[in-house]
């Protein structure tokens, strides 16, 4: 991939699949291990679900901006929606006993579990989620590995 790439996507379910596919392709190209590729793609999928469903609420005039940037040390992924923003304090802990059998509310938890850093910046004009996966090993980042 280029050092950075950005996509502007519609607020549809197809976007969720496309975002996941792009993440899988880019993480694979950058040489992440198979389990890390799965983690990255799932984190992006969950972020895209939140942007499309909870952020933009499927509004046809609102877009999801998905960006990937890679540095020697990190893959940085940003997902931005154009919704009303979220109140982070209202997001329940999905691991609390009283929430274990809830059928939703695990997306951000999975993103935090799978990525090394997750920063969520809500505002009244949208929410931006920045996720970082550290590059481990010499092959990640598209470099040739040294033995």
């Amino acid at each position, binding site marked *: 991939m280029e050092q950075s790439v950005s996509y502007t996507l519609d607020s549809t379910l197809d976007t*969720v699949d496309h975002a996941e596919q792009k993440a899988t392709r880019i993480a694979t190209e950058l040489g992440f291990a198979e389990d890390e590729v799965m983690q990255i793609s799932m984190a992006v*999928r*969950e972020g895209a679900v939140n942007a499309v469903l909870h952020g933009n609420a499927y509004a046809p005039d609102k877009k999801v901006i998905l960006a990937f940037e890679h540095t020697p040390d990190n893959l940085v992924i940003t997902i931005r929606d154009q919704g009303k923003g979220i109140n982070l304090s209202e997001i329940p802990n999905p691991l609390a006993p009283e929430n*274990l059998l*809830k*059928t*939703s509310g*695990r997306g951000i938890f*999975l993103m935090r579990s799978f990525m090394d850093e997750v920063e969520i910046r809500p505002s009244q004009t949208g929410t931006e989620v920045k996720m970082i996966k550290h590059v481990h090993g010499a092959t990640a980042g598209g470099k040739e590995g040294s033995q």
Partner: protein
Amino acid sequence: MSMKLSTRQVDGVTIVDCSGRITLGEGSVMMRDTVRDLLSKGNKKIILNLGDVNYIDSSGIGELVSAFTTTKNQGGELKLLHLTKKVHDLLQITKLYTVFDVKDDETAAVKSFK
């Protein structure tokens, strides 16, 4: 690969063989409809065979929880069979592994129903 479901009966237990992806959208809806259909027809001993499920997202996890609680609330039992490593790991980190009755042998799973 989209999700595929097929059901079969073994000694009074309904086994739902699932393959593909249980994700937001079609996969989750299929799972929900299948379990509700089984329950409405009186099939309350259900095993979800997830051996060929290669991907599941948070919506899919939610659908498994929904299937479990819906079945339990109607006096039935729902168990999971043949978890792949990915699904197993997801249920572990979400602390759901101990909530579900998870089996790795079909015969033993069928016999385990009361």
